[in-house]
């Protein structure tokens, strides 16, 4: 029996990104979706579970994530957990990893913890490594294929120069590449099974975390400035001649990424 824990993050839909006065993403009014690499990690977990095991999902965010979490039950996850507490607002990757660690401890031993390799909002890719470090277990990053080989996992890891195949034994944290797996749809049987299940909620206190360990207070980093370098489709120069358009685009790209 393999118990797999998947950490997912709800990110603002790419069409509705807004930032508040403290350079934090506004998540309240925004329409949220699961981070694409996390969906990939979820499907990797469900594919492993198709052979054997259980899948528990944990996320941190506002109470409105209950409905999308219910949907994950209908896609075949066994248990879904929402860490939700105002104290957690503004958490950086370290505070996030701390909350996930506390949840992982409370949920009981997992043979494998899967995360997306990075989130499309923060783009840091730090949480998987920080979580592994907090739990004192190894981390394998940028994996695009996972399969069981007896009691070991074969991990196909994407490198700049090719693919590395590692054999590992749990417990460990694995970060999965976006688009490596396509998340399955809810199935009729799993929807029926999901009917009796509910989303479990944890507050900071449930996880034994103090205010100092959560949110902005528990964070080591703080965004102090933010600047948009992208001129924007509407405000940019307009060119109807293809050759001039390509020149303008090159100039614009040089300006954004010197």
């Amino acid at each position, binding site marked *: 029996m393999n118990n797999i824990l998947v950490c997912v993050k709800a990110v603002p839909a790419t069409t509705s990104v807004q930032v508040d006065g403290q350079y934090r993403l506004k998540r309240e009014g925004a329409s949220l979706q699961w981070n694409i690499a996390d969906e990939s990690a979820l499907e990797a977990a469900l594919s492993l579970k198709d052979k054997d095991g259980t899948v528990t999902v944990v996320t941190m965010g506002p109470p409105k994530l209950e409905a999308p979490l219910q*949907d994950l039950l209908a*896609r075949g996850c066994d248990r879904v957990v929402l860490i939700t507490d105002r104290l957690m607002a503004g958490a950086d990757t370290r505070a996030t990893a701390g909350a996930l660690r506390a949840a992982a401890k409370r949920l009981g031993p997992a043979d494998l913890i899967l995360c997306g390799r990075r989130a499309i909002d923060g783009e840091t890719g730090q949480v998987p490594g920080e979580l592994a470090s907090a739990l004192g277990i190894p981390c394998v990053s940028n994996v695009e294929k996972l399969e069981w080989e007896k009691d070991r996992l074969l991990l196909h890891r994407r490198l700049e120069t090719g693919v590395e195949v590692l054999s590992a034994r749990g417990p460990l944290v694995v970060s999965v590449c976006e688009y490596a797996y*396509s998340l*399955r*749809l*809810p*199935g*009729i049987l*799993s*929807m029926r099974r999901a009917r009796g299940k509910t989303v479990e909620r944890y507050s900071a206190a449930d996880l034994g975390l103090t205010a100092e360990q959560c949110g902005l207070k528990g964070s080591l980093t703080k965004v102090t400035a933010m600047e948009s370098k992208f001129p924007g489709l509407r405000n940019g120069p307009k060119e109807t001649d293809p050759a001039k358009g390509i020149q303008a685009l090159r100039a614009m790209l040089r300006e954004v990424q010197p």
Partner: protein
Amino acid sequence: MISQNALHHAEKCRFCWMCRHLCPVQHQTGREVNTPRAKGLLLSMANKGTQPFDKDMAQAMYECLLCDACTNDCATGYQPPLFIREARTEAVVNELAPEAVMKLIDNALETGNIYGVEKPSYGQDGTDVLVYIGEVAAIQVPQMAKNLLAVLKKAGVSAKVLANEPASGVMLGDLMGYTEEVRQQAKACADAINAAGLPVVVLDSYDAEIMKQKYPEWGCEIKTDVTTATAYVAKLIASGKLEAKAGTGVQGACHDDDRLARTFHEFAPIRAMAKAAGYEVGEMFSREKLAKSCGTAVAYGYMPALVEKIAASRWEDLKRSGCAAMLTASPQAYLCLSLCVPEGKALVDLYAALV
């Protein structure tokens, strides 16, 4: 569980009532519950808890052809098929779907097609294109499948047909919404098509729609070109590989099926086929994007009497046009229209006419 996106669509209506004039189901039943608008209202009430989602509501969600005429016409961007599919999933999960629907679903899950029978084999192993026949043509309108293959042969195209052609998932998707079971059918179909490695010519536009629109979204994209059979044959005509026939002196009107009309906006190929088959092309009043549905094979499977009435209404359109023949290249349209061909009018399979 109905998604927020679907509920958002269900709530979009501004009560202009234009859609009640174009829904082919409402035309025949005359019942308020069959207007596209009412379906959204019902779902919205179920969501707010003012009406239970019960067998009656489930029945209302199945009294729809998913023809998209309402979507095409609604100024607010209301898309009933989007939330109706989700409502059907809800009905199946909660065992509220009509018995006749459940029988078709069981067949599709057990045998891969709603008819619960084995598909015929064509023994074709050509090398130019892979022809995807689809379950409606293979089982209900087999002559049209043979005629398409004969047309291709006449034009010198070497066609392959998969020996055990997997279901595309379109029928199951219409019956119970887009669930994992449907995606699994789609994936098996895409895998078989990709293994053949040939460009695909799809006879049934309903299959073509799911392949082109849903497969990429579900992570099972077909790697080669996917073309509707009508577009492919029209190209053969345009390139001179398929010779035009002498005039028949008969005036015929082309029936634009729901998917060619509103998904692919493909109107010219079927008319080019009609001309090449020697017909003088007339037109019915509701055509192209505004074409009226004549029924679908899946709806015929669970509400045959209503689909026959809907098809009869399409024949009325033909009578009003003054044309003598209804011209079609759609197996689903052929199946429905053949239920009630009026005296003095002809139903023409355009592939047969081109052989």
